[in-house]
């Protein structure tokens, strides 16, 4: 079984200038290891939509690799996105699914089933590549080749669950983070700073 920290550390080694969209527990570890926060989006306020947001970025910026750091519980809430992504077939899309079998953020309740093989599901939907890793050495040795192959690819990572028992802080600043990150990423990708304030947080 792989730890969140090791998975994020290894993934970051091969990231290059890819955009990342992360959600749930892995976000805090990704934020710790990422050297390019201007290319990172943390979705804490729209559970399950990481894969769909990442798909839009991948389609809109086809020259840029997009890494979606998804979670098993989140993907179950948006399972149809596997078919949507496979149909759109962006070759710059890499879909990492951190599988811990629980709802970690809410205290560790079990998913409806832990029997889902997300790599097989992606393959059945038509992803170009699908992989499943439960040890860090295999993940580390395989990632360079996976990321050099065309996507869409789903890389399932079996991780040790880390249930959160103290809840999640909800502050004005924490809710304003994603809108600010999205604006920064648009500016980075387009070179234009034209997305003004909007919504309750900006």
């Amino acid at each position: 079984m792989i730890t969140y920290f090791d998975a994020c550390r290894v993934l970051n080694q091969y990231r290059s200038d890819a955009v990342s969209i992360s959600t749930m527990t892995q976000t805090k570890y990704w934020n710790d290891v990422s050297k390019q926060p201007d290319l990172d989006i943390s979705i804490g306020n729209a559970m399950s939509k990481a894969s769909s947001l990442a798909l839009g970025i991948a389609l809109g910026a086809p020259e840029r690799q997009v890494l979606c750091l998804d979670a098993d519980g989140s993907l179950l809430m948006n399972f149809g996105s596997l078919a949507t992504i496979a149909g759109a077939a962006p070759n710059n899309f890499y879909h990492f699914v951190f599988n811990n079998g629980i709802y970690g953020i809410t205290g560790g309740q079990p998913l409806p089933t832990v029997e889902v093989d997300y790599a097989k599901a992606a393959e059945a939907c038509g992803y170009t590549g699908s992989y499943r890793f439960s040890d860090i050495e295999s993940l580390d040795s395989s990632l360079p080749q996976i990321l050099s192959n065309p996507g869409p690819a789903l890389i399932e990572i079996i991780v040790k669950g880390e249930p959160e028992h103290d809840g999640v802080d909800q502050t004005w600043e924490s809710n304003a983070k994603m809108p600010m990150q999205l604006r920064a990423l648009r500016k980075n990708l387009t070179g234009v700073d034209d997305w003004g304030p909007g919504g309750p947080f900006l």
Partner: protein
Amino acid sequence: MINGILHPKNVVAQLVEQNVSHYVTLPDSETAHMYEALMAEPSITVVPVSREGEAIPVAAGLFIAGQNPIISIQNAGLYEAGDSLRGLGLGIGLPLVMFIGYRGHNRKGDTPDTAAVMLEPYLHLWRVDYFVIESDEDLDRVPLAFDRAKKTNQPVALAIGTEYAKEPSIDSIMGGAK
């Protein structure tokens, strides 16, 4: 009774005028012929989704990447997409025009269809500005919606209150030879 007709080619012309790049959609009965017209327009890429809740996040991603997307879903699908509208539409200040199929619109007569009954109260509740389009005569509301979305950095809805007209095929123009 509906007096006017809404032709898909005229709507597509409006979208081209607005430099729309992507049309993110889950087709519905009101917009079936619109889909056919869009497939014939090379400047707009159609992005099909499996569930309406995906449409707004996909459009948000496209916008972040510098594209100019719209979405098209049915009113019943908009209700399913509520959390996406909240979290990745209203919450982030996304300037997005949303074509919403107004299934059961009572301009066709009294209707018990809750999908129609709920639409305008729903849009008011979520503080989403909207315009209703029922025929070609209403298409001046399309640029208004784009302008409103851009000025407010908020989603704006265009409620399509009629089925798009079926465009005549080459065969029918030539006398139904087939």
